[in-house]
């Protein structure tokens, strides 16, 4: 009773289910990797189904194309450095967009006089796919430093951009209205490519991940449009899943950077942006701001955490919350210790007074000499409003007013998270090299508020 199309449809449904589960799993640390495997399985089902049931030929071409694509993909993905991952995502996203545009072109070429709805889909697929392709290539080039990471701007850029986009849209409307000439779509693709380039060029390197995520959503929508062209539910659904999820993710990423999406995309048109909380040392090293969620993941996956309280914890009166965070981590099996520098705070024993008030057992407190050797085995040093007492200048810079003071060796920890409100110096009035360390991230904000956010985030893990 079951017909061929039914089997195909069911198999594609399997793919859809796999993809939904994959996305679900990918959004929780516990299942993320499994999610990718489930997605992979779904993809295999879809490919096999297409090959087996869609009555096709040109096997050799398909095989050769697939082989080339596979080699490119595997080699690209395998050999890239871990830090270059974002540009890899960009490039693979771009080729997906390109594929969608090409499929649209082929359909435009093949169908004699497609209906208005089919044409609409073809136009959308070509337009969006091309933008995504070109934009992704530029994003790749910028991240790979083939192009300057700086925003590239010229006067009147936004006017030009809008005109290009309008022209492309006009062509598309003409096509839908029935102008079935080959050049129409080619011209449209050309304009879309141009737009993609110009859209991404003015965006700075730090904002690139947000842009890539947006282009990713674009590619999803292009794939979905392709599905309309080919009457393929699996394409419609999968593409749209990515379109929607990607859009939401883009918003989330912008939010995590404390930026509006408009600011990310168009902020640079007037001005070169200095990404929130990102400062740059003279030698080009930058300060990296982080988010409570990220710190929460770091803490949750840590085996050993050392809390380094300083005057900022006292000012914020965060001691009770610090203890609560430590308790939660301890409860999860993390080894938590407090490192008390002899002059942390503004009076002898300042940290003791506060931590005793918060009921931290004395046995968890360690003196500097005792704890310093332990930083090397520490996953996260959580520096809470301490500054001078962690400043490596005391060891290395004879000109510094704090030279010679023994400090807590937080820089020996595998990673360092610093909670303070700004890049302002502490008591000694000097900058802290530690904040430029590549292992350091800064969680800006009042220490009490940051800790409260951390507690929520850790609990949500």
């Amino acid at each position, binding site marked *: 009773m079951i017909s061929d199309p039914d089997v195909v449809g069911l198999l594609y449904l399997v793919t859809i289910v796999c993809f939904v589960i994959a996305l679900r799993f990918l959004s929780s640390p516990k299942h993320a990797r499994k999610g990718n495997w489930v997605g992979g399985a779904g993809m295999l089902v879809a490919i096999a189904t297409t090959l087996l049931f869609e009555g096709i030929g040109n096997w050799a071409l398909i095989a050769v194309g697939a082989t080339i694509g596979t080699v490119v993909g595997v080699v690209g993905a395998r050999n890239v450095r871990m830090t270059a991952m974002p540009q890899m995502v960009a490039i693979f996203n771009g080729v997906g967009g390109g594929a969608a545009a090409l499929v649209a072109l082929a359909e435009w070429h093949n169908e004699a006089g497609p209906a208005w709805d089919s044409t609409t889909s073809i136009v959308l697929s070509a337009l969006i796919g091309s933008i995504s392709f070109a934009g992704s290539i530029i994003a790749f080039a910028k991240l790979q430093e083939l192009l300057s990471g700086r925003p590239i701007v010229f006067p009147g850029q936004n006017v030009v951009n809008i005109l290009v986009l309008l022209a492309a849209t006009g062509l598309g409307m003409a096509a839908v209205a029935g102008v079935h000439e080959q050049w129409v779509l080619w011209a449209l693709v050309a304009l879309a490519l141009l737009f993609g380039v110009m859209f991404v060029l003015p965006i700075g390197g730090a904002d690139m991940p947000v842009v890539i995520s947006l282009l990713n959503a674009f590619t999803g929508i292009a794939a979905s449009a392709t599905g309309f062209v080919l009457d393929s539910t699996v394409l419609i659904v999968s593409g749209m899943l990515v379109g929607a999820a990607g859009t939401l993710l883009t918003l989330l990423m912008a939010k995590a950077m404390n930026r509006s999406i408009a600011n990310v995309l168009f902020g640079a048109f007037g001005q070169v942006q200095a990404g929130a909380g990102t400062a740059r040392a003279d030698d080009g090293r930058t300060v990296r701001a982080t988010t409570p969620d990220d710190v929460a993941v770091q803490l949750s996956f840590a085996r050993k955490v050392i809390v380094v309280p300083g005057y900022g914890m006292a000012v914020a009166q965060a001691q009770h919350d610090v203890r609560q965070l430590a308790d939660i981590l301890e409860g999860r099996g993390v080894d938590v210790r407090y490192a008390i520098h002899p*002059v942390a705070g503004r009076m*002898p*024993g300042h940290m*003791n*007074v506060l931590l005793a008030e918060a009921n931290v057992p004395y046995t968890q407190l360690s*003196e500097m000499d005792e704890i310093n050797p332990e930083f090397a085995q520490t996953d996260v040093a959580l520096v809470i409003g301490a500054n001078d007492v962690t400043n490596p200048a005391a060891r290395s810079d004879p000109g510094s007013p704090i030279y010679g003071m023994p400090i807590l060796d937080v820089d020996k920890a595998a990673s360092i998270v610093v909670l303070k409100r700004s890049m302002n110096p502490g008591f000694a009035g000097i900058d802290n090299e530690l904040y430029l360390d590549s292992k350091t991230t800064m969680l800006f904000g009042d220490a009490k508020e940051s800790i409260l956010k951390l507690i929520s985030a850790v609990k949500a893990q």
Partner: protein
Amino acid sequence: MRVAVPRETAPGERRVALVPETVSKLRATGFDVSIERAAGNAAGFPDEAYADAGAELVDGAALASGADCIARVARPSPSEVEAMSPGTVLIGFLDPLTDSEGLARLRQREIVAFAMESIPRITRAQSMDALSSQATVSGYKAVILAADRIPRLFPMLMTAAGTIAPVRALVIGAGVAGLQAIATTRRLGAVVSAFDVRPTVQEQVESLGAAFLDLGVRTEETEGGYARELTPEQQAQQQAALEERIPEFDVVITTAAVPGRAAPKLIPASAVERMRPGSVIVDLAAETGGNCEATVPGEVVELGGVTVIGTTNLPSLMAYHSSQLYSRNVSALLLHLAPDGELVLDWEDEITAGACVTRPVSGE
């Protein structure tokens, strides 16, 4: 009904039985109050305050005459008893379990005497429970005395000049005073352990964040929540265990008591000698002989560098607050005995009957 409050005559007694605040409350309910001049001075309550509260200030000689009730802190001297007219109600710490002579005197004079110590420790008598209120002050003060005497800081401090280790304190007997001592020691930042023979106490000690020191000695709790006396074997066992553990501590506060008995001797002199020089023992049981062999009641002595504080009547050293608390206890009892300012003695009542230590024969 007129309540008279004398100036205390017992040596070192600074408290006063009623404070001005309570006087005005009593007057509002229908009591008349006379106060001996300067009765509140030592506790920080000047005569003017009493006058403002509506008390009549009288000279000592005139006080007893015309008073239906005399409220005081310590027991009256024989001459003071003499001055009271028969049938007068007397309220105060009368030491009923040990001062049989004093009681006989009162009985003879036909005084209706209520001993604050004898108020049953039942829930609804809690507001009259002067043992508890004064023990609260003693527990707190014991810690302050220790902190003042010891050449160390209580809290841990990590400073540029090295780390100061926190004081390690032991509280023996975690009744009302003991618990307050635990709380105060912890507040000051010491590391506190506590020990008691009543089994329910462990949870209470831990509810204050202190550690319970288990010496393996347990006894039951009486009806009133007091500890039973230990058997001689248990006592020996306890002494041995303490002798071993005591030298670990810098401050020891003892409060162990069994009502009506001499305080159990818990800390042998040998244990004191093994403590670090500079350590301090505060013996709150000094009044009944002390929990420590080295204790001299009423004195501060040194034994091998260890200070043993046997100071008695600690509440009197905090006369302001302890008078305030005691005064509320007394007025709660007064309001119980004379709800609207008129005496209505109901001998069926658990509190009235329990607290009364001498009463007219007709009533018996």
